[in-house]
């Protein structure tokens, strides 16, 4: 049952990803991307991490995609400009190389995944996992410095964005 659900969601995720690439209209691309974010959020839910799932919806689908949509609408890119059909430049040599590389990655991922596990978890821990408290404890004890660095990064990004936008 769960395998079926994961496979279904996986197919959906890959299909939406392909639709992002092959939509002629930039807004349609962005919309399929929202769908992709949503499917990923459901996958995160299935991995018991509610908090990250809703964060995915809020941050990706809610904020970033909204922002991208705003930019697209502001630039008024209704039709693809001077690119033509995206399907035209589909197959080139380097793409095949990249695909082969990732096929290898898939095989390795499937083969080596059991090694990465430290052991089966207790059912108590499963229920606890994904709760906000777990992440909060980590952030404010061990992960404090990276967390603060992330805030510095965000501030830098805001300053940079404002500077670029103000330049002309």
């Amino acid at each position, binding site marked *: 049952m769960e395998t079926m659900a994961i496979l279904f969601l996986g197919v959906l995720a890959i299909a939406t990803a392909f639709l992002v690439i092959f939509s002629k*209209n930039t*807004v*349609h691309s962005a*919309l399929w991307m*929202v769908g992709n974010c949503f499917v990923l959020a459901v996958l995160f839910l299935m991995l018991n991490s*509610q*908090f990250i799932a*809703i*964060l995915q*919806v*809020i941050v990706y*689908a*809610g*904020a970033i995609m*909204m*922002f991208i*949509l*705003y930019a697209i*609408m*502001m630039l008024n890119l209704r039709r693809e400009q001077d690119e033509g059909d995206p399907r035209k430049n589909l197959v080139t040599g380097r793409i095949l190389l990249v695909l082969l590389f990732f096929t290898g990655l898939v095989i390795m991922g499937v083969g080596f995944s059991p090694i990465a596990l430290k052991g089966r978890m207790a059912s108590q821990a499963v229920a606890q996992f994904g*709760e*906000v408290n777990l992440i909060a404890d980590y952030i404010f004890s061990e992960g404090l410095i990276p967390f603060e660095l992330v805030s510095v990064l965000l501030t830098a990004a805001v300053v940079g964005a404002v500077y670029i936008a103000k330049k002309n």
Partner: protein
Amino acid sequence: MIDFFIIPVVKLTIIFSICLFLIAYATWLERKVLGHIQLRYGPMRVGWHGLLQPIADGVKNFFKEDVVPDNADKAVFVIAPVISISAAIILLAVIPFGEPIHMFGKEITLYIANPSIGILFILGFATLGSYGTILGGWSSGNKYGYMGGLRASAMIISYELSMAFAVISVVMMSGSFSLVDIVTDQETIWNCLRQPVAFLVFLISGTAELNRTPFDMPEAESELCCGYNVEYSSMKFALFFLAEYTHMFVFGALVTTLFLGGWHGPWLPGVVWFFIKTFLIVFACIWVRATFPRLRYDKVMKLEWKFLLPVAVLNLVATGGVMLFFI
């Protein structure tokens, strides 16, 4: 079987039908209150004091011709109202309507779900709902709609911030994202007394997120002649309309839950208190709409970025400081 299937389904049906009924009558209430504030009567013809008006409107909208403009983006045009209404209705799932009641020897909770991330769920899906507005405006192939959609996205990017900050200071007080926990935390003192600044910021930015006057930038009748829904007609328009009123109802419920102590109150049962408070907030929304003129677009942005956001952040810092040193 009974616990996992029948009770949730019955609960779902009852809560959704009651809420949708109330939302349909919110349209009647708005017209009535607006009328009386403007020294008119409002709807009077259909039924006693126009009580059947929502049904008549529904029937009328259902049978109207469904126009899709020629240069519209057809698929997006059709899907936009659906996004809008479904993202609005899903919000009803996590609102705690009342304290658990005992019936047939079982304890029945008066909410559909109580996820540990309830308030984030609402923030996330409220944002998703505005995709309907944006896409509806964009896909109409109409300049006014386009401007409306653009404004809607700018509004949602801006006002989401101060709203989230106001919510976070409440979450800090109660130490949980779950709406039920937030309500139980307010048993002795309501959050609007403990967090008056957050309360005001939430009210203002919530009104802005609802796209209601004085912040109704996306539909601004006098500037954009109804903005994002210019090209919409028939049932599609009705869905947008219904989504707006669902958001208003959810906003009332959310203010009640976060700041007005949810179902807590003397004498009456919890559910009644909850609906009284929600009704008062919805009434206040209409009252504000009837009183204030629309702000200019740049003033709306100024209000958010130069006033509400700094105030909300300062409030958050102050809350943290107080909790650190005094509690």
